[in-house]
């Protein structure tokens, strides 16, 4: 029993390594600039991270299941222009662009998942291909032009407040909570971990591996669609060239949060911390007026450093 406690103790440290990195970062920034630790700024950070946050949570599912999704950024653009196309004022009720947008994302996820499971092609290459395809589709659909003039109801999703809290934050929190429960307390969540951890063993345990993977890609596609809608609404236009390289930030957040790219391991809370770390780096460096070139250097150093700190503690 005592031994068990001890083990858990070391697990806790390894689990909280990245939290510590996060807190250290927050303290440093609070000391460096008085603008950082203000209620308004924290709210701004949360709103800023919500799009990347929703994407990162989505790809957490896929990564735990042993896959990867590089098409996220393009799906953000595609769902953004598609949804925006049905969101002009006085055309359709709000639910129409939302559903069509989500459906588009789910469709992309489904295709990714089907090619990966039935076609047995490496997820990296499938989603890389999809990255190009979805971008092309977004351009075709929008004829290469931003889709603007959107209804106030649609723009409320990204720009509005509800009980003084920006709607994107609420959506992000909702996604986090639901995903946490899904991964931790449901059977399908457990299966996602098992499939990512050892596909063979999962199969031999009676798990329908392909169905589980499909589920993960669909969730990921759906959440990418949600992110796309939030983004389009926030910038009040569906932008066919939106979201370029967003997948990298999302995956970085997931990995910073301790999820293994080998699959089978990872947490929603870790991803949230990863998202916040990236968010406060971006925000803090802007606040400190660090030149954009040096910002990139520092950002790279901090990301590696945070993970390094985490790994050190894990030993």
């Amino acid at each position, binding site marked *: *029993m005592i*031994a*068990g406690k*001890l*083990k*858990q*103790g*070391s697990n806790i440290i390894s689990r909280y390594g990245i939290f510590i990195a996060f807190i250290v970062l927050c303290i440093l920034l609070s000391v460096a600039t008085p603008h950082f630790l203000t209620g308004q700024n924290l709210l701004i950070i949360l709103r800023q991270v919500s799009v990347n946050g929703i994407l990162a949570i989505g790809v957490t599912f896929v990564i735990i299941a042993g896959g990867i999704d590089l098409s996220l950024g393009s799906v953000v653009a595609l769902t953004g222009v598609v949804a925006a196309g049905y969101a002009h004022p006085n055309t359709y009720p709000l639910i129409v662009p939302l559903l069509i947008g989500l459906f588009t994302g789910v469709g992309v996820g489904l295709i990714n998942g089907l090619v990966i499971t039935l076609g047995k092609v490496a997820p990296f290459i499938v989603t890389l291909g999809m990255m190009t395809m979805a971008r092309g589709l977004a351009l075709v659909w929008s004829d290469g032009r931003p889709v603007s003039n959107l209804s106030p109801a649609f723009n409320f999703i990204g720009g509005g407040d509800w009980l003084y809290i920006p709607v994107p934050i609420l959506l992000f929190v909702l996604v986090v909570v639901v995903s946490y429960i899904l991964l931790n*307390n*449901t*059977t*399908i969540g*457990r299966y996602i*971990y*098992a499939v990512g*951890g*050892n596909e*063979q*063993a*999962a*199969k*031999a*345990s*009676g*798990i*329908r591996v392909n169905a589980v993977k499909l589920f993960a890609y669909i969730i990921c596609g759906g959440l990418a669609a949600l992110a796309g809608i939030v983004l389009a609404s926030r910038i009040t236009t569906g932008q066919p060239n939106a979201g370029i390289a967003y997948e990298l930030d999302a995956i970085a957040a997931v990995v910073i949060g301790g999820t*293994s790219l080998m699959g*089978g*391991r990872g947490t929603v809370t870790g991803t949230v911390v990863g998202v916040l770390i990236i968010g406060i780096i971006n925000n803090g460096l802007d606040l400190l007026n660090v030149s954009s070139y040096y910002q990139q250097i520092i950002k790279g150093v901090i990301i590696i450093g945070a993970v390094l700190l985490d790994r050190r503690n894990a030993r």
Partner: protein
Amino acid sequence: MTSFAFMNKNYLLRVQHLSKSFPGVKALDDIHLDIEAGKVHAVMGENGAGKSTLMKILIGMMAPDSGSIFFKGENTSFRSVHDAIKAGFSMIHQELLPFPDLTVAENIYMGRYPVIFPGWVNRRKLNADAQQLINRLGLSVKANRKMKTLRIAEMQMVEIAKAISNNAALMIMDEPTSAISQKEVDTLFAIIKNLTASGVAVIYISHKMDEVLQIADTVTVLRDGKCIVTRAASELNKDSLISMIVGRPIDIIFDKKHFERGEILLSVRDLSGNGFREVSFDVYAGEILGVAGLMGAGRTEIMRALFGLDEIRSGTIYFKGNPVKIKSPDVAMALGIGFISEDRKETGLVLTSTVKKNITLGALNLCSHNYIIDKKKEAIIADEQILRFKIKTTGRNQVINFLSGGNQQKVVLAKVLLRDPQVIIFDEPTRGIDIGAKAEIYRMMTELAAIGKAIIMISSELPEVLGMSDRILVVRNGKITGEMKGEEATQEKIMHFAMV
């Protein structure tokens, strides 16, 4: 080969006050071990006693917390395997360590390739040397075949070849025979005799009493990380050995009782697939059906297909008289078939996950409602299974990877039996399992048969097949070549059907 015969009086290797702890376990506690050149020194102990940990420290894979190691009289503590191998150590690891996409020859000489000049691989010599070694081990495998195309047992023989090829002064063998059949064991023993004759020291780990008594000169027994005793093998017999290991005598291992045979639960007609053809047999409720054969005979393949893990090309499976299509394991499991695979790392366990989650993985329905897992119930179930199978772990939340090999095997058993299947396929169920636990598993099989389960037991250990089975099938080259009643079977009879 160098001769160390002159050093016989001195010890080749001395281990003193060696200790090692992991979070939550003291794996080794003040260990002493003296190894003589030219002798076979067996190390025995229950699952999780610390045998593998000790060996990993000797070979430089792990650092000890304290203690010293003297090799040829010099204080050494290898900081890497690289140094140890250079100093003349080699080791057969308990877990297979193959490079699946490299050739057999490359696997054998990995890290020690013959070169034309430094850095430039001499492929011809590499393949020729490897082929010679393979032939010497009686293995019919081409040296340029990809490792991943080999069967488990063949891979195990390649690991043996690899260890031998190093011309080491000290060879560590951690359960080298758990995956091979008698024929290969005999070859291995002949080689060990050769090695020791030329002065090589061998540390031999096994759970098989007969083997140890046959090959070892000295035996050291570990229990809970402590050295219990070191004795000359000649002073020991099976019973004394067992009671030293377990700490109490175990009388009968094969506690075989015969029960009234019930209806036919499963029957297979003309089943063909990858590695087997036209296989037909029946399994009755309440019986243990032993499946014997040489390594690579295709036993595992038949069962994998039956369980839906591999494709079936033709033939029919009847479950309780009804034809069924088993396309995937979930179908098989829904019918009530359970499969305990021989390869716990590949198909048995999710190593990154915990003991609890592995145990409940196939039976989450027992502790979930509307897809929501009842964590309290899950914990209770896991703890019950840990207790029932005497799994040595720091707790249900321990990561499986940190369990000793034998305890991992027990988790596989716990997991499959948790679903309470009616037909249970045990593929090499006691692989790497200690003597006490073996008895436990045999008792469990008997109990299962008693309550009307049908059991198919694939085993390469003939005593086990003979001791446990009501009926025995023999497989050769993917076909069933013989069937006999358990009480009529003898080793000779089985071997007659198993060999050409």
